[in-house]
């Protein structure tokens, strides 16, 4: 049963990756400029170089061959070179992506830690003041555009009070060797250099971007948890339990929570795709050296190989994250595996 479900998911994944690569491949034709330059990122190459490139990229053969060669290159990590830096796009992506991922993971962590308990509290005190407070705060958080929130926080905490730095991942004077490219992990691997100060400084740099990025998923999770809890609390088995004389705490912790959290788990995974999009905005504002900022810079510079590589990496990641979320959800909730059979 589970195996069958997995198979179905994987075939869907293959199809999506196929569509994605076809789209990325066709970008080479859709972008203005020389086809070979779009593919390789080599500009002003001389005749013999052009010949070698044409052969490598199978330019003179039919589209299918070109696409095949494209797939082989993507798989082998040869994503061309960036027009603006002259360095390998794959290298850029593998250096920058962890930074974005790190930010997203922390933001999601904060969202889960704050959002779910808040949602539970709101449902437990349904229509009483904790519910109202949480509800209005959520609505506010949900409505604030994050670029505005980011600027506001910078104004208050960076410029007025000077509490937090406003850019980057760590004070530039701290030299941290990139190993995993996850800054906190790197600092930990290197044994907390500078007497732990580097770690502390990295945390300070993380604070504001994490808060900004966590805002949206937190509000979503609060609302989702609350609705789901309210739904479960309406169920007959809860009423039965209540009739038996269980108090609210027992009711929620032992009976309602487990069932209510199931759809929330799925939601956490689905948040990842929204999070990546929001991360781009956050990265630009906080000069966070991640893939979003790089991608936006590349668009500004019309760096076609970089745009292609960045898009491919980000969308591939979103697809994978969604897949994983659904899969883990189906592990917890066997019922959901059947839904794909198309109920009306």
């Amino acid at each position: 049963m589970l195996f069958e479900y997995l198979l179905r998911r994987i075939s869907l994944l293959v199809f999506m990756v196929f569509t994605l690569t076809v789209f990325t491949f066709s970008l080479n034709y859709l972008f203005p400029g020389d086809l070979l330059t779009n593919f390789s990122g080599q500009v002003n190459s001389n005749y013999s170089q052009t010949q070698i490139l044409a052969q490598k990229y199978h330019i003179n053969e039919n589209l299918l061959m070109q696409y095949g060669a494209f797939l082989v290159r993507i798989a082998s990590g040869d994503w061309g070179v960036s027009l603006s830096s002259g360095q390998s796009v794959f290298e850029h992506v593998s250096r920058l992506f962890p930074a974005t991922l790190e930010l997203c993971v922390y933001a999601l962590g904060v969202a889960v830690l704050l959002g779910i308990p808040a949602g539970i509290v709101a449902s437990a005190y349904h229509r009483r003041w904790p519910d109202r407070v949480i509800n209005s705060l959520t609505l506010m958080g949900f409505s604030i555009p994050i670029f505005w929130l980011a600027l506001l926080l910078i104004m208050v905490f960076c410029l007025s009070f000077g509490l937090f730095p406003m850019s980057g991942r760590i004070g530039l004077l701290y030299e941290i060797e990139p190993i995993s490219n996850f800054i906190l992990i790197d600092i930990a691997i290197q044994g907390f250099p500078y007497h732990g100060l580097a770690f502390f400084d990295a945390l300070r740099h993380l604070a504001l971007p994490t808060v900004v990025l966590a805002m949206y998923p937190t509000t979503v999770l609060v609302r989702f948890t609350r609705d789901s809890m309210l739904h479960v609390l309406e169920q007959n088995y809860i009423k039965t339990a209540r009739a038996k004389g269980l108090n609210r705490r027992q009711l929620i912790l032992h009976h309602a929570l487990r069932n209510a959290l199931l759809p929330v788990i799925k939601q956490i995974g689905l948040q990842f795709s929204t999070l990546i999009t929001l991360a781009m905005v956050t990265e630009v504002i906080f000069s966070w050296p991640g893939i979003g900022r790089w991608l936006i810079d590349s668009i500004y510079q019309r760096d076609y190989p970089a745009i292609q590589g960045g898009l491919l990496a980000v969308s591939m990641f979103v697809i994978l994250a969604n897949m994983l979320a659904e899969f883990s959800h189906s592990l917890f909730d066997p019922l959901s595996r059947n839904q794909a059979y198309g109920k009306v």
Partner: protein
Amino acid sequence: MRNLVLGALCTYLLGCVDASQQQANEKSQGLVYCAEANPVSFNPQVTTTGSTIDLIASQLYDTLISIDPETAEFKPELATSWAVSDEGKSITFTLRQGVAFHSTDYFRPSRTLNADDVVFSFSRLFDVYNPYHFVGDAEYPYFQSVGIDQLIRKVVKVDEYTVRFELFNAESSFLSNIATDFAVILSQEYAQQLIAQKNKPAFDNLPIGTGPYKYKNFLRDNLIRYHRNEQYWKYPVPMQQLVFDITTNGTSRIAKMLTKECDITAHPSATQLSVLKDREDIRVDKAANLNIGYWAFNTERPPFDSLLVRKALAHSVDFDKIMQAVYYGNGILARSHLPPSSWAFQAQDNIPRYNPELAKQFLKEAGYENGFNMTLWAMPVSRIYNPNARKMAELIQSDLKAIGISAQIIEYEWNTFVERIGKHEHDSVLLGWAADTPDPDNFFSPLLSCTATFSGKNPANWCHPEFDLLLTQALDTTDIALRKTYYYQAQQMLIDQLPLIPIAHGVRFQATSNDVTGVTLRPFGGISLGQVRRN
């Protein structure tokens, strides 16, 4: 249990006190300079981009001689003395002994600087037999535009510490050119090591010089890290570390200054200076600078090949408004191509002034009474000569609209921008030039000569043989009075021909944290951060 918590708290607090001392210590050993753009290269020979020169030239390298910013006299650097003979056609430099090259994780020098290094560094610029001449497509924009390949016959190693330059003909600006930030001395031993490793392109990206700092790493769009050169010959370098924080946005640079993420900030925008002035811990320095911000036309492209059109454009723009809106009163309205502080300056009376009626008339005469479409390229970074090209472009755009010309503003990332301008893809461009030497030739040859057109450094794509002749004549003599008359004629010719319209001369601003000293602003060339320290 409570004791345990208290104990933990105490240790934490103690740790914090200890830590903050440590932090102060850590900070005092490094300095962050917020820069406006990525470097194009790490070798000053291959670029004229001012933002790059600021970051690399004086920090990593030394030159044979330099020019004293106050007296404008030549000062010994890597050359302790020099002698001119054979009517200026032969110049002999005696080199300083015991100057160590940088020792880094990618190169360990086995010897100190000698004549081979000097011969190698200069022959790369013009000698096709130099193994590095064709690395990076043999582009040496500054030297090519001043015509170094037609100037130096050869560079001869006389002995271990003596080098002789033999010239085809004496040229009055030769020593000034040798004293620019571009004429750095590179390590020949390092060059040979890279040949052995078959990795010649690394030469311009992993630099080895003799300057106060040595290269550690560079992350594009993020930072450049230098470490102190412990063996610097000139003085002990105070700072352990120098980091360039690459922040292209001017407002972000000021904000980082306020949050203490930067110690020094390049080119704070004049509009935001008031924010900094209220702060007691930040000072803003202002220095006169030899530069010119201009609007250049691609004179090879119709309709800009027509003088009437260029005149019409020049008369259509209200430059007084630009002075207020872009320079905020911190610039000097240009009255010639040269800045007034240059000794060859002559105010041009017939410089075009705002007169839209006249502009329309010129357009009509040129046959464009219905106007035309054009592109207006605005540089994306703030430089001394043009603090806000985007805004300037918008003002010009609206003025042009009034005479029926529709201009489209084009922006690219800075290095891409410079590259595309070099290929003359523009119709017109807002750009500028900051001098590298006080010699007036520096404003003409590298910018408007025919050779500059070929090397892509002539933004007007303008090659005028008579103008070139004037420049050559001015260089062929050392008689200042005679040179002046040639430069007067050259300035006049520029206003008559209008390949570009001089707009203004900017003032250099720099915001510095109050605890940082040792930064000096020079009227020409890049900045030097060798002696900055934190008190």
